[in-house]
């Protein structure tokens, strides 16, 4: 289908205007609002103790979530791709389920399970571990929303590479672990990394699920996304909200860059 020069230009203009209005202009505006007063006020605003703690907490949650998702995600992917799993269809659906759940519903579900009066509500009295309104709750919420990423990135790779190499290694006397470390892991490495990057991006940015289970103490249980919200609403500090949002956006852009580069890696394997 060959379109005329005019039609091409019209389509291009229409698409670009839509993207510019929806994506580019708002981002330019917020950058201008953030840096309009210079770099100094921006740095001061993202270096307040509360902002530093929020960044630390966000990174801590990422640091706990990622290994959990890597270990359990890879095992789940291997199980789905290689083993005879009972009720495979159901298991596949359960893995996809977090994509279909609204973040607020995630928060409500966790309160119903772990909160006072919930099924596991007795845990706090017996062990003193505070899940809801504590770090564990925020981590569990983040794990919930990021659970599918690693599985969904690794499983297709496992299907694609097939089992020949693994079988050859086994025939040559390699143990299960040796096969995994020497054959399987190198093969899924880029898919896994991509899954991790997606997990990091989502974990840094999760808001709805986390706000439901956080006690909201600045410096202790406030992640960067919660800081943006509380600065905007509770502190009446619009500029501070813009700067924290810009910081998060910087992290997101970094992730996007990583994604783009990794994607090239992954597809030209």
């Amino acid at each position, binding site marked *: 289908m060959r379109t005329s020069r005019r039609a091409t230009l019209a389509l291009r203009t229409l698409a670009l205007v839509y993207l510019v209005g929806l994506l580019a202009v*708002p981002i330019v505006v917020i950058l201008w609002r953030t840096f309009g007063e210079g770099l100094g006020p921006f740095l001061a605003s993202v270096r307040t103790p509360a902002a530093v703690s929020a960044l630390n907490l966000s990174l801590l949650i990422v640091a706990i979530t990622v290994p959990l998702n890597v270990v359990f995600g890879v095992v*789940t992917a291997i199980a789905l*791709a290689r083993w005879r799993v009972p009720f495979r269809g159901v298991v596949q659906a359960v893995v996809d389920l977090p*994509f279909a759940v609204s973040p607020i519903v995630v928060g409500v579900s966790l309160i119903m399970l772990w909160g006072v009066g919930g099924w596991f509500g007795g845990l706090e009295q017996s062990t003193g571990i505070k899940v809801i309104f504590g770090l564990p709750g925020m981590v569990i919420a983040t794990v919930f929303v990021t*659970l599918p990423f690693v599985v969904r990135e690794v499983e297709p790779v496992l299907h694609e590479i097939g089992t020949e190499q693994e079988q050859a290694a086994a025939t040559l006397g390699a143990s299960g672990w040796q096969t995994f470390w020497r054959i399987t892991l190198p093969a899924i490495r880029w898919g896994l990394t991509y899954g991790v990057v997606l997990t990091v991006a989502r974990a840094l940015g999760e808001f709805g699920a986390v706000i439901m289970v956080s006690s909201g103490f600045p410096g202790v249980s406030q992640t960067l996304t919660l800081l943006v919200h509380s600065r905007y609403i509770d502190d009446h500090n619009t500029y501070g909200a*813009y700067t924290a949002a810009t910081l998060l956006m910087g992290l997101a852009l970094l992730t996007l860059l990583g994604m783009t580069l990794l994607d090239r890696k992954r597809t030209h394997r």
Partner: protein
Amino acid sequence: MSTTTQPVGAPPSPAPPSAAPARASSQGGRRRRGGPGGRALGLGVVGLWLSLMVLLPLAALTVRSFDDGLSGFWAAVTAPAALAALEVTLGVSVVVALVNAVMGTLVAWVLVRDEFPGQRVVNALIDLPFALPTIVASIVLLSLYGPNSPIGVHLNATRWGLGVALAFVTLPFVVRSVQPVLIELDREVEEAAASLGASNTTIFRRVVLPSLAPAVISGTGLAFARAVGEYGSVVLIGGNIPRETQVVSQYIQQQIEIDSPAAAAAVSVALLSVSFLTLFVLRVWATLSQRREASTA
């Protein structure tokens, strides 16, 4: 695989194409790795992990939603404010999904068939809404369309504002699902049709659109499923006005805040059913159309 990225936060395409043959070969082949004991352990771990993280919370939610019996559940879901929130959410989501269907296809077309300077940057920009935290999306849109709008457009606390926020976060779904299909589309058929004298409109309607339709529909469905559950991006720009701009997730949060957990759970189950049903229909439809394709081939 295509050269485009799978959207972050997107459910994978309803039926992974590589799954079926590979599964067959692995089931036919000899099992490797560890004894049956190791595998049983692995399966146990997987089962426990998925149950603890995903199933148990949702089960607890469902049970709590029937705390006051079936009538309590029904009363909570059909409370006027709850119905109004559902109506607003579904209405705006449908509109946003349709806008996505048209604009997403258009953007994908321009990215694949057109060539212009800066195209790769634009292509990379498409994924931005997935990488950007939703609360940042909200504040970004608020800075442009909010009360201090530098262009004098005030969309906050209106359905337009909701629509813009949802269009922002769902932008990549249709683009990223149509793009790969468009890349692999056989252009010879189009050219044959053109040489037989078909007009561009005819070619698009009779040749291009039928091939793109499955991708457009699945992208639109995913965008819809995402939109109905969205919270973070609408929280600052939506306005949370009952019956006008309050979406279901905000209503659920409000029920928790006013200490009505059973009502919150009931409406959560209703919302969950909507998005799950959407994804389920998409999956069934994708399987059916794949089968149809296979039988005609």
